[in-house]
């Protein structure tokens, strides 16, 4: 156990946890926008898979990672448009339609992968960027300042989206659409337009999250995300619908996962309880969900389609 507390081991654990949390963070921040405006999107995992495949295939064909991210973002936007149409215009039951999108994304990404690529082949990923001077600091240098642009991007999104949600007009519109759409409507806010915007933005981030995953792992295969999208949705609840909270949730999940791995590697967690330990990240997230629901109220209009006149 003392091995775990050696600086090198702690830094590896924390750094791995941060990288592991990255794709969750993109998807969860995206979902936060949608949920804040009142739309639940359970199809995040399917959209991540489609975005991941799009990025993977683009990289295989062109070798251009930035183009790959763009393709993933566009795929996310298109899926977001479809989801918004189903949730806002058709006013369908959001939980069910979300699952439909998940199944579609799962099956379609797998089908495209089998037809267009056929077998898992590696792709290059984004290089590690060492921020000059800062990355040379002891401990903190490797921990915080030696990641890839994708990881930095996810964490930079947090203050940016917090600012947008809390300090801008569009953020006000989003929040009011989720809290009291009727009142917002009377003040001239187009609920439909706001929700279309947030769902599309959220899906775009989900697509980028999938692309982040595939470029981080440098491979694609069937069901690459293994349910990450659903955890991302849970993280939104955990984070009390605030990007900073979501970031803490993603970090908690990632760090618990990497700590469990480190303890297993060191033999601190014996093989007999190995499977129990695997559950820990999910268990802790569930416990946190229970606490979060008690602490914070969700957006009042979440999952409720809005119709003028009641």
């Amino acid at each position: 156990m003392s091995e775990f507390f050696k600086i090198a081991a702690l830094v590896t654990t924390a750094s791995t946890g941060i990288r592991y949390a990255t794709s969750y963070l993109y998807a969860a921040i995206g979902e936060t926008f949608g949920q804040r405006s009142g739309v639940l999107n359970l199809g995040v995992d399917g959209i991540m898979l489609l975005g991941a495949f799009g990025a993977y295939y683009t990289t295989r064909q062109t070798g251009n990672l930035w183009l790959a991210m763009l393709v993933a973002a566009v795929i996310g936007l298109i899926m977001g448009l479809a989801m918004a149409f189903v949730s806002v215009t058709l006013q369908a039951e959001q939980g069910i339609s979300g699952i439909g999108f998940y199944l579609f994304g799962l099956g379609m990404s797998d089908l495209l992968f089998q037809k267009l690529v056929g077998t898992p082949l590696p792709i290059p990923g984004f290089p590690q960027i060492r921020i000059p001077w800062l990355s040379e600091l002891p401990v903190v240098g490797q921990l915080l300042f030696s990641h890839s642009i994708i990881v930095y991007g996810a964490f930079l999104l947090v203050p940016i989206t917090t600012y947008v949600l809390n300090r801008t007009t569009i953020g006000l519109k989003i929040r009011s659409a989720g809290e009291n759409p009727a009142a917002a409507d009377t003040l001239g806010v187009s609920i439909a337009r706001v929700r279309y915007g947030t769902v599309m933005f959220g899906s775009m981030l989900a697509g980028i999250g999938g692309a982040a995953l595939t470029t981080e792992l440098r491979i694609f295969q069937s069901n690459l995300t293994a349910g990450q999208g659903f955890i991302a949705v849970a993280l939104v609840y955990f984070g009390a619908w605030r990007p900073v909270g979501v970031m803490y949730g993603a970090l908690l999940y990632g760090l618990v996962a990497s700590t469990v791995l480190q303890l297993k590697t060191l033999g601190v967690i014996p093989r007999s309880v190995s499977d129990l330990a695997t559950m820990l990240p999910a268990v802790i997230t569930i416990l946190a969900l229970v606490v979060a629901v008690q602490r914070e109220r969700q957006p009042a209009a979440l999952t409720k389609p809005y119709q003028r006149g009641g």
Partner: protein
Amino acid sequence: MKRLSVILVLVFALVAAACASGTSSTTTTASTATTEGTTQAAAEPFKIAMIAPSAINDLAFTQSMYDALLAIQTEMGGESAVQIDYTDNAFVVDDAAAAVRDYADQGYDLVIAHGSQYGSSLQEIAPDYPNTSFAWGTAGDTFGLSNVFAYEAASEEGGYVEGVMAAALSKSGVLGVIGPIEVGDAKRYVDGFVAGATAQNPAIDIKVNYTGSFSDVALAAAAATTEIGQGADVLTGSAQMVTGAVGVAQQDGVLWFGTQADQAQLAPDIVVASQVYEWQVVVDQIISLIKGGTLGGQSFVIDLANGGETIAYNPGYSLSEDTKALAEKTIAGIIDGSIEPPRPAASS
């Protein structure tokens, strides 16, 4: 309007999922979609169906059987002689059971349930179709049924050989293993690997990590990073999630040993060798038995001796002559019985 739109969405989702997956999925939980493929055939071909828990291109468990079936098809004369159909990604046992019944109903000659979790379903289904032959793996139990074959891999043998090689090649004296769940085929392989490495170098340090998932690629990558952080310079692992670990190994210049299928394509520079399952050795025998009138009641093992397991060296990695000779010597020792890898306690 709202009810109509709900119905429209449900129909859209089901149709989309069905079109994308090829079978109509009747699951109500968010389970993995199943896919189905067909190779066309003309008159009276021998019809084989395969049901498996992961994708046919997973470079691991499922692909090993699919590749074997393709090899048999070529060997026996192509699509007119052997028709192969499959349902992959059937991780949920209920989905798989439905597919097994489906194939049996359609009169397939041989239905292969390629997954140890399918056992209890097969035990229920097989008696209903006495004229259909079923094969179940990896397992050794035929339930005393006359139309069920069982097959398994003595993966501890190839694991032992690769463990010996890994210990010989490791400069840091630390090896890393990324396993899924400590059961079945994965456990046999890992136990063999550990035994082989320890036999080659008693002072070797082996970090064994069962991540708890067969499919979580990101977790496997994190596990590999953790083990490399602890000094491992040679890694191995089992199940389809290892692609994540191989990616990390490639980046950090760490060597990789694969199992179940030839994994050289994942990282042409650092994959040393893979234990390949040549299931056709067993399926060949099963087909002959079926054609001769025996539909089950026997169990088979692929190992180094019968050629069902082979060590495929990666031509892209320059293996030293010494290590290769060591590997060949170990293989010969296992075949003639002078080297005993750890065998599982009781047949599964």
